[in-house]
């Protein structure tokens, strides 16, 4: 309070014009430097990416001197034929596998996260604070730490190479619970819940009739982040799905890279896999994430503050 009044007095007094002009002169010199630095960093980050995106349009030999250049569409088509020729088109199998396990995992994550996030935010029950603590703890621990223990568990029940353990593990998404928790805590008016209670709805009834219809934002965010987390996960499927036929595209691509002439020239493949081909495969592997990213833009912007808790 006190500082605010001082602030207003100062603003109202004659001191104001002077620092502003002084500030502006400083700002113009400072602004030029700031803008220049920011643009330079932007170029440094984008330059190699441009190299990756342009690589499929070029040929291996034309890339031999480095730098950037745009090639031809015919080269892209050639590169795509090489990818499809690898191990009788297993690339498509990998993409399908990824869709099945990641979409399954994201749907399960929504089904599990939304009700539990609601209960933690809006209901009083014993062990609530412990559950919140455990959820946050699992949320901040890097998921790589549990991969080997999960492998031991899944191997014991003889379910390696099955998609089900993967889907269940992707469905266990504490960050999703946290997102739903924050959503119901901040975006669901308590009056609506009270009105539901007045109308004689049960707590479960309130969840389904009042909370779920207003949970679109939370569902979209959990679905988006769950999808991206699953699609880009490498370590877990790498360990739980040892067979090439059941690999998701992230793991499959590593295999493609390792057996390519680029890394392993002695192997003698039926197709030519060099930088342009492998770059194209890596770009195609990310297209679903980009599509989902654009589709979820609307929800992401609104939930930027919520989503900003974890990448």
């Amino acid at each position, binding site marked *: 309070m006190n500082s605010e009044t001082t602030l207003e007095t100062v603003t109202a007094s004659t001191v104001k014009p002077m620092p502003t002009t002084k500030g502006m002169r400083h700002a113009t010199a*400072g602004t030029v430097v700031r803008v220049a630095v920011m643009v330079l960093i932007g170029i440094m980050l984008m330059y190699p*990416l441009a190299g990756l995106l342009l690589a499929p349009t070029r040929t291996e030999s034309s890339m031999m001197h480095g730098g950037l250049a745009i090639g031809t569409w015919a080269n892209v088509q050639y590169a795509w034929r090489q990818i499809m020729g690898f191990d009788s088109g297993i690339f498509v199998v990998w993409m399908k596998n990824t869709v099945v396990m990641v979409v399954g995992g994201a749907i399960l994550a929504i089904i599990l996260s939304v009700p539990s996030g609601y209960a933690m935010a809006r*209901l*009083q029950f014993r062990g609530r604070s412990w559950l919140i603590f455990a959820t946050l703890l699992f949320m901040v621990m890097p998921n*790589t730490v549990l991969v080997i223990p999960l492998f*031991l568990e899944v191997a014991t029940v003889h379910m390696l190479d099955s998609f089900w353990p993967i889907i269940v593990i992707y469905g266990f998404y504490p960050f999703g619970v946290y997102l739903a928790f924050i959503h119901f805590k901040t975006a669901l008016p308590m009056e609506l819940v009270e009105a539901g209670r007045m109308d004689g709805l049960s707590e479960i009834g309130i969840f389904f009739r009042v909370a779920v219809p207003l949970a679109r934002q939370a569902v979209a965010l959990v679905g988006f982040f769950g999808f*991206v987390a699953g699609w880009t996960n490498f370590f877990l499927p790498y360990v739980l799905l040892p067979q090439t036929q059941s690999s998701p595209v992230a793991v499959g691509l590593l295999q493609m890279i390792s057996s390519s002439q680029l890394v392993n020239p002695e192997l003698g493949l039926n197709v030519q896999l060099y930088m342009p081909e492998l770059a194209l495969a890596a770009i195609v592997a*990310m297209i679903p994430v980009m599509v989902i990213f654009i589709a979820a833009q609307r929800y992401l912007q609104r939930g930027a503050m919520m989503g900003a808790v974890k990448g």
Partner: protein
Amino acid sequence: MAASVIAGSPRVPKRKRALTHSAPAVVLVGPFLLVLVVAGALPAVYALVESLISSTTGGFAGLSNYLTVITNFRFLPSFGDVGLLLLVWLPIMVVGVVGLALLVDASRGRFGKTMLFVYYIPAALAGITNFMLWLLILDPNVSPIAFFWKALGQTSIDGLLSSPINVIWILAAMLFYEGSGSWLLIVLGGLHSISDEVIEAAEIDGCNQWRLAWRIKLPMIAPWIGYLVLMNFAYGFQIFLEPQLLAAAAQGILSPQWSPNQLSYTYAYSVGNTGAAAALSVILLIITLGLGVLIVTKTGLLERS
């Protein structure tokens, strides 16, 4: 909370409420709790049990699995490697992310928004695509920055990765490239929480942009920076994907047991010593759990909830 204050007698209704909610809570929370146990708690407990069992005899092994792991010739070096990486990468990450956040925060309007989008793009290509990008960058023959490698006298990716200190720098660059975008958003969230009055007051007091960033904004986002440091420490410590991929790209050059997690993977897969794999997992789990508790209780994450 407000309702109970108004009601005047918070105790009795609260206890009643707790009783009435426990049945619906079980229904709503139950499925998640089940999965938390199956995919979170159980594997951890199972690893602990396995770590005390001998892989060869199947009997109680005491701490012998732990001894096996600790005396492995890669155990200490793998922690040393990761420690060195953290020493190089964490300062770059913190200074880089906080610096970018302050720059973006100082740029209001369309320019700031555009640059934020540009800085975020690398984070959107996580995992294998990012790795493919680095394979391109690191190959001195075809790299977009071939001129840079030439200036350093590098001619092949194998040569580049055969120097341990190069590996550290390269991993640090990879981690910064893929991680900075998401963390930029988080730190910006912290900067946006500073009230406009504070900024205006400082500007009126004659603070220029530089002093404003250094003296006002930086101290006020200290909790976010703490979160950034601890979370990335935990992540870097657990690193698996990046060194594993580099080892695959430069076969025979880089040790496939570069990080502790890779060593754990080798025990589980190549060696088939589940006891030792479990023991190493337990060691990593305990350290990570400690860090996790620190993050949840000390960075204000719990209060914000």
